[in-house]
C-alpha cells in the first residue's frame, strides 16, 4: 500500500519483537495465551452446540436432552464427538503438498522444505494453499490426495495480498470440495478447528480453538487461538459443521509485527483468510492472474497510523490519487462508504481492495465535499526526489535563495542568489517546507511558477522552473559557509565548545560539539555513532570542529556503554538525543543526520530507519554492508538520503537503494575506523550540504 508508511520500518520495535518472539519469549507468550484459551473454552461451546441448527451436518448424539448437561464429563465427550465429526466431514478436502528442489535460504532466513497443506476448492483439481509453503520456488510440486494418489501440481496464480496460492492438478475423478462457512454466522468465541496435513498424507492434524477476532490484518483475516504453524499453513480453519471459515496462512498482521507473520506460530494468534474472499477471486486466479493489494498513492506528512484527520500533503506522481487530481490540503473523509478519521481507517479499507479494483473516496477541499473514484494499481512508479538545485532560507516575505548549483534547473531558469521566492503556483511561501511539499509531488514535465522578488526588493517577476529527478551523482559543489546572523565578532562565531550531555536514565556518556552561535539560527544536527569504546574529546574537536563552525552543525557522539561492543538497545540513544536537542535548539529538519563509523554505521542505519521522519539522511564510514533490510520504496515527503564511504562493495548497496527510488551515493575510500583523520571530510561536507538543496 502506498500511503505513507512506505518504510516506516518501525525498526526497533519490529526487530526486537522478532527476536523476542523467536526466542524463549515467544514460548512464554504461548503459555500465557494458552491459559486464556482454557478459561474461555466452555461457556461458548455449550452455546454454540445448542444454538446451531440440528439440521447441520454433525449429529450431536452426545447431547440428547438438557438434563444431560448436568453431567460434566458427558458434555466434554459430546463436544469431542462434535469436533471429531466436523473434522471427519472436511478431512477429505485437505491434501498434503510436497515440494522438490528450490531455495533453502531467503535473505539469510532458512526456508523450511517439509510437506505443507492444501485445501481443495473445486472438484476439477483446484487447490489453495499458503504462499508460505512455496517461498522456496520449488522445481516441482506434488499433491498427495487422501486416497493415496499423487498428482503433479502447477502454481496457477498467487494472491500476494492474502498470502494464498492457487494450484492445479489433473483430477482423474471429481474431488471432494471444501464448503465455505457463511461469514455472517461467525461469532468471536465460537469453536474453530485448524487442520493440516504435513505429518501424514492420509490423516489430518487438528487443533481446537475459538475465533479470537474478526476482520484482523486490516480486514483480511479471521484470528483464532487454535495452533497455527507450518504444520497447518494452507489447511482449513473449520467451524463445528466442518465448513471452512478460511485458509490458514501467516498473513502480515500489522505494523507492530512487521511483515513476517510466521513469528506468531503457536503463539495463540493464528490467521485464516476467509474462504469466501478467496472464492470470490477464484475465477480471476484460475485464469492465471496474480492478485496484489491495490495502491492509492496519497501522501501525508505524518505516517503514524493513529494520525488523523487524514490531510494530504500531495499525491504520489503517477499514482491513482494523482490521476484523479487529489492534492495537498485535501482531507479524506470516507473510503468506500466507511468513515476515515485516522490513517489506520484508510489503510483498513485499502488492504482488502485489490489492484485493478476501484474505490470511492470522499474528500473535503476548501469548503467543498468531493467524491472521487480511483482505480487502484499494483505498483506506483518508483519515486525519486525532485531537484531544482537551490538552497533557500526563510526570510521576510518568502524564501531567500542562498545557493545555486550551476546547470541545475533553478540556475538555468534564471534564478539568482539573493532573490526571494514569494509564491509557487500562486501559493504563498512562508517556510521552506511549503516549497518542499509542492516540489515533492511535482510532475517532472510540468513547470513550477515561482514569483521572485529581486534582491533589492524593487521588482517582482515570475520564473518557470521544470523540476528534474535528483541527480545520480553526488552534487559537486562547494556551498558557501553558513555564517550566523547579526554582526557578532568573527572570533565569537569561530568558537565551539566540546562538552558532555546527560540524558535521564541513560548511562551512556555523550560528547557534543556545540557551536557558540548554536542558538542564534536554525542549526544542523549530526549524530555520529563511533566504534565502541571511549572517545577522546580532543580528537573529536580537532577533526569535527571545522564542520561545526563553517556550516553550523551541532554534532553529538554517544559512547557505547560496554567498551567492547554496542548493543542493539543503544540504537534508542538516537531517538532520545534528537528529542532532547529538538527542545533546546531550532533544528533544521533538512539538515538532521544520523551517521556512524565502523560498527557504529550499522547502528546509524537502524536508528535512521526508526527516526526516518525526523531526519534527512544517514551515512556510514568504513562500515561493511552487503544489503539493507529495506524493501519499502521511496515516497514523496518520506525521502531519506544515504551516503556510504568505504569499500567498493558499497556501490551495489547504493545501487539497490537507487532502484527503490532513494538518493544513495557511495564513495570508495580507505578508512581506518579507529582514526577520525582518515575520514574524507570534504566529501562528507558536500553531501551534508547537499541535503539542504531543493
Amino acid at each position: 500500500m502506498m500511503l505513507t508508511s512506505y518504510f516506516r520500518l518501525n525498526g526497533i520495535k519490529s526487530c526486537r519483537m522478532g527476536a523476542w518472539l523467536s526466542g524463549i519469549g515467544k514460548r512464554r507468550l504461548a503459555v500465557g495465551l494458552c491459559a486464556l484459551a482454557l478459561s474461555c473454552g466452555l461457556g461458548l461451546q455449550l452455546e454454540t452446540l445448542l444454538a446451531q441448527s440440528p439440521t447441520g451436518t454433525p449429529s450431536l448424539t452426545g447431547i440428547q436432552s438438557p438434563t444431560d448437561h448436568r453431567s460434566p464429563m458427558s458434555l466434554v465427550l459430546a463436544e469431542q464427538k462434535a469436533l471429531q465429526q466436523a473434522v471427519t466431514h472436511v478431512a477429505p478436502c485437505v491434501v498434503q503438498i510436497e515440494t522438490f528442489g528450490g531455495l533453502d535460504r531467503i535473505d539469510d532466513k532458512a526456508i523450511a522444505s517439509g510437506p505443507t497443506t492444501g485445501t481443495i476448492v473445486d472438484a476439477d483439481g483446484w487447490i489453495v494453499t499458503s504462499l508460505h509453503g512455496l517461498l522456496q520456488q520449488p522445481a516441482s510440486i506434488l499433491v498427495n490426495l487422501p486416497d493415496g494418489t499423487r498428482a503433479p501440481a502447477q502454481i496457477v496464480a498467487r494472491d500476494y495480498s492474502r498470502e494464498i496460492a492457487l494450484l492445479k492438478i489433473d483430477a482423474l475423478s471429481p474431488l471432494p470440495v471444501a464448503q465455505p462457512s457463511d461469514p455472517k454466522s461467525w461469532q468471536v468465541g465460537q469453536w474453530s478447528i485448524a487442520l493440516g496435513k504435513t505429518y501424514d498424507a492420509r490423516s489430518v492434524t487438528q487443533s481446537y480453538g475459538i475465533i479470537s477476532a474478526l476482520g484482523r490484518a486490516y480486514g483480511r483475516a479471521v484470528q483464532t487461538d487454535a495452533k497455527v504453524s507450518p504444520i497447518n499453513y494452507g489447511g482449513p480453519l473449520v467451524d463445528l459443521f466442518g465448513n471452512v471459515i478460511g485458509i490458514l496462512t501467516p498473513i502480515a498482521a500489522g505494523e507492530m509485527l512487521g511483515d513476517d507473520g510466521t513469528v506468531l506460530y503457536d503463539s495463540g494468534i493464528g490467521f485464516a483468510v476467509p474462504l469466501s474472499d478467496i472464492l470470490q477471486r477464484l475465477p480471476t486466479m484460475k485464469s492465471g492472474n496474480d492478485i496484489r493489494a491495490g495502491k492509492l498513492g496519497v501522501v501525508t506528512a505524518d505516517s503514524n497510523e493513529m494520525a488523523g484527520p487524514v490531510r494530504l500533503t500531495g499525491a504520489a506522481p503517477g499514482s491513482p490519487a494523482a490521476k484523479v487530481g487529489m492534492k495537498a490540503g485535501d482531507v479524506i473523509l470516507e473510503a468506500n462508504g466507511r468513515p476515515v478519521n485516522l490513517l489506520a481507517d484508510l489503510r483498513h479499507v485499502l488492504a482488502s481492495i485489490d489492484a485493478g479494483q476501484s474505490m470511492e473516496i470522499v474528500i473535503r477541499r476548501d469548503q467543498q465535499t468531493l467524491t472521487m473514484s480511483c482505480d487502484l494499481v499494483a505498483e506506483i512508479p518508483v519515486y525519486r526526489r525532485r531537484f531544482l538545485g537551490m538552497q533557500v532560507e526563510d526570510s521576510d516575505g518568502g524564501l531567500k535563495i542562498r545557493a545555486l548549483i550551476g546547470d541545475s534547473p533553478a540556475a538555468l531558469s534564471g534564478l539568482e542568489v539573493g532573490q526571494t521566492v514569494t509564491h509557487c503556483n500562486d501559493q504563498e511561501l512562508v517556510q521552506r517546507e511549503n516549497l518542499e511539499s509542492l516540489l515533492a509531488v511535482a510532475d517532472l514535465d510540468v513547470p513550477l511558477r515561482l514569483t521572485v522578488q529581486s534582491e533589492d526588493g524593487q521588482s517582482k517577476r515570475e520564473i518557470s522552473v521544470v523540476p528534474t529527478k535528483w541527480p545520480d551523482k553526488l552534487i559537486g559543489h562547494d556551498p558557501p559557509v553558513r555564517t550566523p546572523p547579526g554582526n557578532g565578532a568573527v572570533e565569537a562565531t569561530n568558537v565551539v565548545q566540546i562538552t558532555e550531555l546527560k540524558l535521564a536514565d541513560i548511562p551512556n556518556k555523550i560528547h557534543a560539539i556545540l557551536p557558540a552561535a548554536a542558538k542564534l539560527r536554525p542549526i544542523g544536527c549530526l549524530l555520529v555513532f563511533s566504534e565502541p569504546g571511549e572517545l577522546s574529546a580532543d580528537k573529536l574537536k580537532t577533526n569535527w570542529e571545522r564542520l561545526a563552525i563553517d556550516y553550523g552543525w551541532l554534532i553529538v557522539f554517544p559512547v557505547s556503554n560496554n567498551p567492547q561492543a554496542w548493543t542493539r538497545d543503544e540504537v534508542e540513544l538516537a531517538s532520545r538525543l534528537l528529542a532532547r536537542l529538538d527542545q533546546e535548539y531550532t533544528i533544521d529538519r533538512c539538515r538532521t543526520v544520523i551517521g556512524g563509523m565502523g560498527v557504529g554505521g550499522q547502528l546509524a542505519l537502524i536508528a535512521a530507519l526508526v527516526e526516518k521522519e525526523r531526519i534527512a539522511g544517514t551515512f556510514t564510514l568504513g562500515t561493511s554492508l552487503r544489503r539493507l533490510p529495506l524493501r519499502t520504496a521511496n515516497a514523496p515527503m518520506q525521502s531519506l538520503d544515504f551516503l556510504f564511504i568505504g569499500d567498493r562493495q558499497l556501490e551495489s548497496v547504493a545501487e539497490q537503494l537507487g532502484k527503490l527510488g532513494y538518493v544513495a551515493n557511495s564513495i570508495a575510500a580507505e578508512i581506518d575506523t579507529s582514526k577520525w583523520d582518515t575520514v574524507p571530510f570534504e566529501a562528507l561536507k558536500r553531501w551534508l550540504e547537499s541535503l539542504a538543496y531543493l
Partner: protein
Amino acid sequence: MKPDWIVIAESNMWNSSRQGVSWKSNPLSMGLFMMALLAMMLSYRTPRHVSGQEATSQSLHQTVVASELKTVKLFGAGGMGLESYQSGFFISAEGHILTVWSTVLDVSDIICVTSDGRKLKAQVLGIDPNLELAVLLSDQPPAAYFSLEDSAQAAPGDRVLAISNLFGIATGSEMSSVQKGAVMTITELRARRGNFQSVYQGPALIIDAMTNNPGAAGGALLNMQGQLLGMLGKELRDTSANIWINYALPAAQFKESVGNILAGKTIIRSQATRKVADRPMSLSQLGLVLIPNILSKTPAYIDSVQPRSPAASAGLKPDDLILFINSQRVASQAALMEELNTIDRGDGVLVMVQRGSELKEVLLQP
C-alpha cells in the same frame, strides 16, 4: 505467575456444574476448595490409582486434582544454560517415578516435591537410552500413582490434559500446571527422519498444548478421564518446518521398557539410526548423470542416461525429475545421495520420476 490454586480453579471452569462463583475472586470458595482438596488427600491415605472405569463418573476438576497427586516436580543438576528441573509422575505404590532421562538426573539425590507438599529424595533405578526415559525410586511411597496397566491409547483429535512443571513455575507445595489441548496427530518421528534430532524414533503424540518448554519434559499426558496417555518429551525442533513441536511418548511405547527396568534389566542403546550400506549404491551404477549440483537444494533432474544401464532399460530419460527413491522423498540431489548410501549395490531401487505432468514409477535392477 499464578498460584497453583488458580491453575486448578481455571480447570474447574470446565466443570459445567459450577455454582456461579469464581475461585479467583472469592476467598470463601478458595477455602472450600482447599478443604475439598484436603478431604481428597485424606481419602487417598493409601496409595491408589483411579481406573478408567471409575473416572468416567467424575468431573474434570476431580480428574485434575487426583492426577496432580500422582505427579511430581523434580529438581537436580543444572547450570551452563541448562535447566535444573523437570517433571515426573509416580507409577507404583512403592514410589517409582517415570521421567525423561536428562542431565537434571546427574545428582546422587534427586529432590522430588509432590503436590501434597512432601519433599522426597529419589535415585535413578534404571534408564532406557533408546526412549530417553529414566525410572527413579523415591524414599517414600506416593499418595497416588498412575498404573501403566490402566493407561489408555490416544487417537488423533482426543482432547487431553498435560500436567507438568513447565518453566519451573510451581515451587514448594504448589501444584504443577495443567494445560488442555488435543492430540493433533500421531506421527512416527522416524518417518520424518533427519528432521528431528531425537534419539527416540518411534510414534509420538503431537499435541496442541504448548508443552515444548523448559521443565515440562517428564510430565503426564492424560485423557479427560485422567487415564495416562503418555509422557511429555524433551524439547524438540522440527527442522523441516522450522518450529518447535509439542509431543508426548505414547504409554504403549514405554510400558515394556519400564517393566524391564523394574525387573532389573539393563537396556542397551540400539542402533536406531540408519546404517550406511557396506557397499552403497551409486548413481553411475544405475547409469544416471544428474544436472550439475550447484545449489544447496539442486533438484534431482536427470541430465543423461548411460546406454544399456539399469536406468536406460527402465526407460528413464534426460529431464526426468527424480522425486522418490524407495518411497522416500528426495527433495534435492543431496537427499538423493543420502538415500542411495543406505541401499546395497546389489538391491533393486524403486524410483519415481516426474516427466512433464506425468508421474512414473520404475524399478531399477542393477
